[in-house]
Structures are given as structure tokens and as C-alpha cells.
């Protein structure tokens, strides 16, 4: 059973909840090496996205994802707004008219989203950004697909890879974003954007655990 449109809506709602629950944690991480707003920003954006969902609940998955992306762009601000906005808008652009997503569809969407993030932010792997959580997650999905893993298994593995990527940001010296101003002092702290990106993939794996 692939990922239904309702499952996509559930995922977005679950992620909004996860952001709400982790708002202070994300802001705290951003205090250490940034400007103490990442949790607040993401929360504002996803609360706004929630209010848009009823209006697109009967539309295709591409439209839903694009709507979320556009809402994030116009409500989050900061680095997170354009980056998460682009991620969702590109995922939406990659899933036009879809009523459900197979594992391959999801991999395609995620890849398009991540490429968008990299185009916009020009971060590379190891720059201590959300890309460090997203890129390994995509690689894990591709590998799982190559190994004919189940959908839920692949999602699980991508969440684990994102978690590892997130943790791997700790020792890094930031080269992009606000943390880069700290130079060497940015090492020893986990990147807030990588943390919110891990949450995104973990929420997907949890919400879609029944998919196959």
C-alpha cells in the first residue's frame, strides 16, 4: 500500500506537532550557534501551513506540497523559510497530479526537494546545515530501493541516516549560515536545521509505518 494523499496530510500535521513539541529545543540549539529563532520560525510556518491544509485536502499531493512550501516561504522568513519552502515546493513540483506515492515517487520528490535546497543555499555536505541530514537520508532511500527494501523499511533507514547525519554535524565547523560566523566556536554543537530535517524524515517514517 503506497503513501496515500491522506497519509501525506497526516505527515504534515504530525510534523507540525513535532515542531511544536521541539520548538524550545530547536531554539535552544540555535541559541548556541545562531540567533535563537529556528524553533519559533518553523513553528510559525507550520502552524500557518496547517490552516491551509483544509483548502487543499481534496487536491493532488503535488498541490498540497506546493501549498505548504509557498506558505512556509511567506511566513517563516530567515534562512529556514526559503530553504524549507523550496524543499516542499520542489517536492510538490516533482509529484504533479499524484494521488499516492510509491517508494520511487517519494525518492524522486525528496531528491528534487534536496536539489532545490542546495541550489538555493549552496551548501555542501559537511557545511553543518540541514543538507547534512537530508543528503544521507536520500542516499539511504536509494540504497534501500536498490536492495528492494519495503517502503516502511526504506523510510526507517532514511530516518536513521538523517539522525546519523544530524549527529555528525556536532564536531563540524560551520561554513554556511549564521553558525559560520562563529568559526571554530561552532564545533561541538548540533546544527538546528539538521535537527529539524531529521525530525521531518523521522515523522515520515513514523506516520507511514504502515505503508509498503
Amino acid at each position, binding site marked *: 500500500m503506497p503513501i496515500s494523499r491522506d497519509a501525506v496530510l497526516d505527515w504534515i500535521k504530525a510534523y507540525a506537532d513535532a515542531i511544536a513539541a521541539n520548538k524550545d529545543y530547536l531554539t535552544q540549539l540555535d541559541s548556541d550557534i545562531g*540567533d535563537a529563532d529556528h524553533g519559533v520560525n518553523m513553528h510559525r510556518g507550520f502552524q500557518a501551513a496547517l490552516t491551509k491544509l483544509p483548502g487543499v485536502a481534496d487536491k493532488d499531493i503535488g498541490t498540497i506540497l506546493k501549498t505548504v512550501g509557498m506558505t512556509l516561504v511567506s511566513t517563516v522568513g530567515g534562512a529556514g*523559510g526559503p530553504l524549507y519552502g523550496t524543499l516542499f515546493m520542489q517536492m510538490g513540483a516533482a509529484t504533479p497530479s499524484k494521488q499516492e506515492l510509491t517508494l520511487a515517487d517519494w525518492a524522486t520528490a525528496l531528491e528534487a526537494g534536496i536539489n532545490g535546497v542546495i541550489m538555493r543555499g549552496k551548501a555542501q555536505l559537511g557545511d553543518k546545515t540541514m543538507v547534512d541530514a537530508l543528503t544521507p537520508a536520500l542516499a539511504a532511500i536509494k540504497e534501500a530501493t536498490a536492495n528492494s527494501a519495503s517502503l516502511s523499511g526504506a523510510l526507517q533507514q532514511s530516518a536513521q541516516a538523517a539522525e546519523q547525519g544530524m549527529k555528525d554535524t556536532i564536531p563540524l565547523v560551520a561554513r554556511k549560515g549564521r553558525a559560520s560566523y562563529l568559526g571554530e566556536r561552532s564545533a561541538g554543537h548540533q546544527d538546528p536545521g539538521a535537527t529539524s530535517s531529521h525530525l521531518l524524515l523521522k515523522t515520515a517514517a513514523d506516520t507511514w509505518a504502515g505503508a509498503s
Partner: protein
Amino acid sequence: MKKLINKPEDVVTDELNGIVAAHSDLVRVHFDPNFIARADAPVKGKVGVISGGGSGHEPMHGGFVGMGMLDAACPGAVFTSPTPDQMLEATKAVNGGAGVLHIVKNYTGDIMNFEMAADLARAEGIEVEAVVTNDDVAVKDSLYTAGRRGVGVTVLAEKMCGAAAEQKRSLKEVADVCRKVNGQGRSMGMALTSCTVPHAGKPTFDLPEDEMEIGVGIHGEPGRKRMKLQTAAEITEMLAGPILDDLPFKSGDSVLAFVNGMGGTPLIELYVVYNELAKICAGRGVKIARNLIGSYITSLEMAGCSITLVKMDDDLLRLWDAPVKTPGLRWGV
């Protein structure tokens, strides 16, 4: 958290309503998307000059909207760059047919949001140029990082670009003024205390009673290094030295010297710092032709200061001296 506010989520709206109540003779505030524009915008045939950024840096940028400076400013949430729709609407509101200059401080968020807005505005047929300010010598510049932050130079560039636009210079010429001011300007800042982002509710960093942060930006982010508190003379040297060396400013240069308070620093201390800065400049043969002393680009209630020097020429001096009439900066009119 000790602040004169109602609820953290209402700070920016309450402040904007305060501006409406106080300055309706000078500016007009548009809500949703939020921006502050000159009361008489768009001025026909004049280049529109706009900027924007997170709130918490007042009077920048909203306090600089008015004749001779900005045509509009877009306030984001506290320390969060505004969204593209704000800049797009502001751009449309101030376009008098001669194009619009976006003055963008070099932060990943500001750059990306302004870029999206410029793309959208161009798609609607408005000529837009964006100039990025990146004057903070505390940050090592590099092609492979986010580069230097845009700080104090932004205020000075807004003033001089605004004056150039009043003279009906072309979009390219006004943008050239911005590039020149930024190219010839350098800044560095320090903090005695952290600030508290209203939503976060507690200080962004803890600083022991006998320590300070050197090389901070304007978002309460920690600086390049932490060290024991020193005298005003030593602190000023720690800020001015790297600034003077970086451009470098040379003997005989004529400069605009800007000693800026971070929001929680009283004026008496800024004059003590200015006194040291004047001595340092004199010692290097650098002539201070103009000065600005006060809290103009702030970090909420952070205590501390920053220094900005811009190498001036006759054109820039005339643009600096030109009349300006905004809530935050006013002379000649």
C-alpha cells in the same frame, strides 16, 4: 526576561502600531504583509530605496524611512529576515518608475528572501538591483562560507543612497553609491551582555560579570572570542585596529566615523569610546570628517558597541550632509 512588551508574539505588531501612532506625518505602515513606506511613496521618477531585515535592530530599518533615506523598510520577526512577499509588496509600493534598489545585509536568510522577492518583482516588470552589505571584519571572508555580515555600514549606505535617489540619480548610480560605501566601509562590534529574544525568553548566551564578547554581530549571536573585560581604550583599539588594517585606511584618508550602541548602552559610554576612536584615528593620520554617535543598529537590549568607518570622498560627503527627515535620523530640514 525583562522587557516593556505585552506578549512576545505581539512585539512587532505593537511596535508597528506605535509607529503608526507616532509618525503618520512621515510614514505609512502596511500590515500583512508588513512594511513601512514613506507617506508620499511612490515618488515619481525617483529610484525607490528599500531595505529590510529582522526586527530588534531599531531604529534600523523602519526608523530610516522618509525623505532622503529609505522609501520603505520590511520588518521581519525578531532577528528573522522578512519574507519575499513583504519585499515584493514594498517594492511595488515605492516604484516610481525609475526602478528599486534593495539594500540587503549579508545573511543567508536575507539574501535568499530578497532574491526571491527581486525575481518576483522583475517578473512583474519592475527593474530591481540588489546590493549586499558585508562590512563586518570580525568574520573571516571567504568564497566558501557565508562571508562577512552586513552591519553598521548598512545605516550609512541607506542614508547616502537615499540622498542620491533624491537627486534623481539612476538606479545604477544609486546602486553604485551603495557599492562604494560598502566597499570603503568596515565595522566590528562587541558585547558586554547578551540579549534576550522575546520568544526564547532567556539570554542567547551567558556572559560572566567580568567577561565580554569581541566580534559579535547584531543578532545576539556569540562573537569570535570571549575575553576578560578591558578598558574602553583597549576595547576601542581591539575594534578599530582590525577595521583600519582591513581596508586599509591610510594616513590622509577622510572618514565618516560611526560609534553605535547595541541597544542597552548609554550615550555617555559611546562618547567615551568615540574619544578613544578619535585618538586612534589621529594617531594613524586618518581624519574624521563626519561622525555619528548613538544607537542606530541595535541588538534588542544588548549592552555593547560597534564601530564603523567609511572612507569618504567629496560626493559621499555631500550625500551624507544632504537633508534627511526620518523618525530616526533628521537634519537639514
